[in-house]
């Protein structure tokens, strides 16, 4: 469902609208189906009633015609004379003629003794027929009857009328019967309009015959059309002489059918009539289709209109809002949205404008504050530079004029004077280093430390200077300076003066604290990192002091005993190493010595040579 969340507002509303329309459509269709179902049932039962009435009328007409015809033949003079003569040829000739004209299926004539005079149509021994004819002979009156008889292994239904053949004088000369078989053709002739109407004769739970318009003929016997089975209870009731039209429709092949069961004569044969409600069904389908089409059209139209309205009322203003907001992100804080109304969108726009004003105001004051801060940084830097200059200039005179006197440039001096003046020089140098350290620390804390980066700083060269300086500082102490330095250290990208400052600081610390033994300077490279270590055999540092020594203005007890310093040298050295992307750390064993390490990247990508810019 993520795509739906990311879809546009218009699309989401369209989906919502379609859903609502879908529900409406569904309920309408359901209503329509149930209504048309009732309609079909109503129309269906009317049609079947009508059809049943027609069929019943036809059937009784057939029966009456049979009776009329059989009496008509029996009372014809040439016929009863021929019967009276017992002339087989004469009787046969006449009934053959009658059968040809009146299209009966079977005609039999017997004489007064029951002997067969003529057997036309269905030929052969038919005991039930013979019996009825003998009854006619005895009773001397017309009998109409429905017979079910065996013929060639199958059963058939016979509609039969008999009449006595009576002479002019009133003597019964014989009997005649006319029969129609209720076969497929016969059933088909019962319908007023054979389209969509089917009939079948049921006897003892199965179909004896069906109307010819049932194609293809069902293969299962107890079924009139495919999927339509007999309801035995209804058939039984119809056998009792009742015409039954059930309310329920039967669905076959997806088409609803109305059904009727009617008795045939006084026999136990039941005729089933089916009426196909195809037209109504098709009408229903068409109506449904039309409804759906209209709804779809309505949906498309509504979505279109809604989208257009929405685009005008909401989507366009929201897009404007977004564009303006994006411009504001890009720094154009003076952008405002035109407010077009007081609806939610209008309120959003004016609220947005208020927010934009607030942001703009804040941005302006932030800008001012930033400029103020930059200005004060510049002032601070200028002050520090000026301080450095103003302190160093008099020291230049103090230190060097004194040195001239010590060195005898101005005339002879005695040993005591040299000693005192040397104290002046040493104090002056200490003051100078204090000034340097305090200024460096101020710059580091103000964040205004700037490196002068060169691409090819020779660490070998720097370490040579450091070792020379160390030897100078150790004058008079039984301490040996050892160098274990890879003679081919790679040139590094760094500020040479600052790196020298770090190394000198470590060296001067080692010299200060080591009274005897060795100071070992080693240097090596490993994986683009150059590490210098200064190891001494001094008193060492207690574990709890190991981090203390890197805090500004903090000194260990030993440090204080060894003649002070500012307590700034190591914090500055560590900051300078960090400014190069390097590290400065210490390991120490009290009583044995201390080792300081400085590792620096050989070619740091963070550092850019100053002159190359």
């Amino acid at each position, binding site marked *: 469902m993520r795509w739906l969340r990311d879809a546009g507002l218009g699309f989401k509303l369209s989906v919502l609208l379609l859903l609502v329309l879908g529900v409406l459509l569904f309920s309408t269709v359901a209503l329509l189906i149930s209504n048309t179902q009732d309609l079909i049932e109503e129309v269906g039962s009317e049609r079947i009633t009508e059809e049943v009435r027609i069929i019943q009328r036809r059937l009784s007409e057939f029966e009456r015609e049979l009776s009329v015809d059989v009496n008509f033949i029996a009372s014809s003079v040439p016929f009863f004379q021929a019967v009276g003569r017992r002339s087989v040829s004469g009787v046969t000739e006449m009934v053959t003629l009658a059968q040809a004209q009146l299209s009966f299926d079977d005609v039999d004539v017997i004489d007064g003794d029951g002997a067969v005079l003529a057997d036309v149509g269905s030929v052969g021994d038919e005991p039930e027929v013979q019996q009825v004819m003998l009854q006619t002979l005895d009773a001397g009156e017309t009998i109409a009857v429905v017979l079910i008889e065996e013929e060639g292994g199958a059963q058939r239904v016979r509609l039969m009328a008999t009449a006595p053949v009576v002479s002019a004088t009133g003597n019964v000369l014989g009997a005649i019967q006319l029969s129609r078989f209720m076969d497929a053709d016969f059933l088909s002739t019962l319908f007023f309009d054979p389209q969509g109407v089917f009939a079948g004769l049921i006897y003892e739970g199965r179909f004896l015959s069906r109307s010819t318009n049932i194609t293809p003929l069902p293969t299962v016997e107890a079924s009139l059309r495919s999927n339509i089975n007999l309801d035995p209870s209804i058939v039984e009731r119809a056998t009792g002489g009742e015409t039954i039209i059930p309310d329920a429709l039967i669905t076959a092949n997806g088409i609803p059918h109305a059904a009727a069961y009617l008795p045939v004569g006084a026999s136990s044969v039941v005729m089933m009539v089916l009426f196909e409600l195809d037209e109504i069904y098709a009408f229903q389908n068409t109506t449904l289709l039309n409804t759906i089409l209209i709804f779809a059209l309505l949906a498309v139209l509504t979505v279109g209109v809604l989208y257009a309205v929405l685009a005008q009322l909401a989507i366009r203003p929201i897009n404007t809002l977004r564009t303006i907001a994006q411009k504001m992100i890009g720094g154009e804080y003076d952008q405002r949205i035109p407010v077009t109304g007081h609806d939610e969108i209008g309120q959003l726009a004016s609220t947005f404008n208020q927010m934009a004003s607030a942001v703009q105001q804040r941005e302006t004051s932030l800008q001012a504050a930033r400029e103020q801060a930059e200005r004060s940084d510049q002032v601070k830097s200028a002050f520090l530079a000026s301080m*450095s200059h103003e302190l160093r*200039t008099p*020291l*230049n005179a*103090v230190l060097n*004029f004194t040195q*001239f006197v010590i060195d005898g440039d101005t005339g002879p001096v005695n040993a005591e004077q040299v000693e005192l003046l040397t104290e002046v020089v040493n104090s002056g140098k200490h003051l100078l280093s204090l000034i340097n350290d305090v200024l460096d620390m101020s*710059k580091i804390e103000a964040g205004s430390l*700037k490196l002068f980066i060169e691409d090819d700083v020779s660490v070998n060269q720097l370490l040579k200077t450091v070792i020379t300086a160390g030897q100078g500082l150790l004058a008079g102490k039984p301490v040996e300076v050892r160098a274990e330095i890879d003679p081919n250290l790679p040139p590094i990208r760094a500020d040479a003066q600052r790196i020298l400052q770090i190394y000198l600081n470590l060296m001067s610390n080692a010299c200060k604290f080591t009274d005897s033994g060795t100071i070992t300077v080693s240097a090596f490279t490993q994986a683009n990192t150059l590490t210098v270590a200064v190891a001494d055999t001094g008193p060492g540092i207690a574990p709890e002091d190991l981090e203390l020594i890197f805090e500004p203005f903090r000194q260990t007890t030993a440090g204080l005993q060894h003649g002070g310093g500012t307590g700034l040298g190591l914090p500055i050295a560590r900051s300078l190493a960090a400014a190069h992307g390097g590290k400065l750390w210490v390991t120490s064993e009290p009583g044995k010595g201390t080792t300081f390490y400085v590792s620096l990247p050989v070619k740091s990508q963070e550092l850019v040579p100053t002159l190359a810019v």
Partner: protein
Amino acid sequence: MNEQPAVLYVEDDPQSRKLMQMLLTGRMRLPNVTILEDSEDFLSKVEALDPKPKVIFLDIHMKPIDGFAMLKLLHDLDWTKQTRIVALTASVMNEEVAQLRQVGFNGCLAKPIDLATFPDTFQRILAGETVWRIIS
């Protein structure tokens, strides 16, 4: 050192001037040492010098024109092509030194100067080496 080089020093601080005078003329016994005390008529005075100085030490914080402007004027002269021009200043904060390097000074000596190493440094400057002696 067959021939003693001529040296020029421009400095407005009288004590610094006296110090360099004692060092260059007194201790190092250089015969041609000129010390100018301000930058006002600097150019005309430089042009009048004979012999032309081989090494020039310039203070940076001077009025009316500072060391950078003086360097620029010197660079515009033909005879300064072989001249070593070194800043001698108390302004040795890092960004100031960076600026000195960028404009093309041949080196920088920080005040206070180191008397003990100065003669050696001077010879190295004369030999064409660029010396940045900032840390004392």
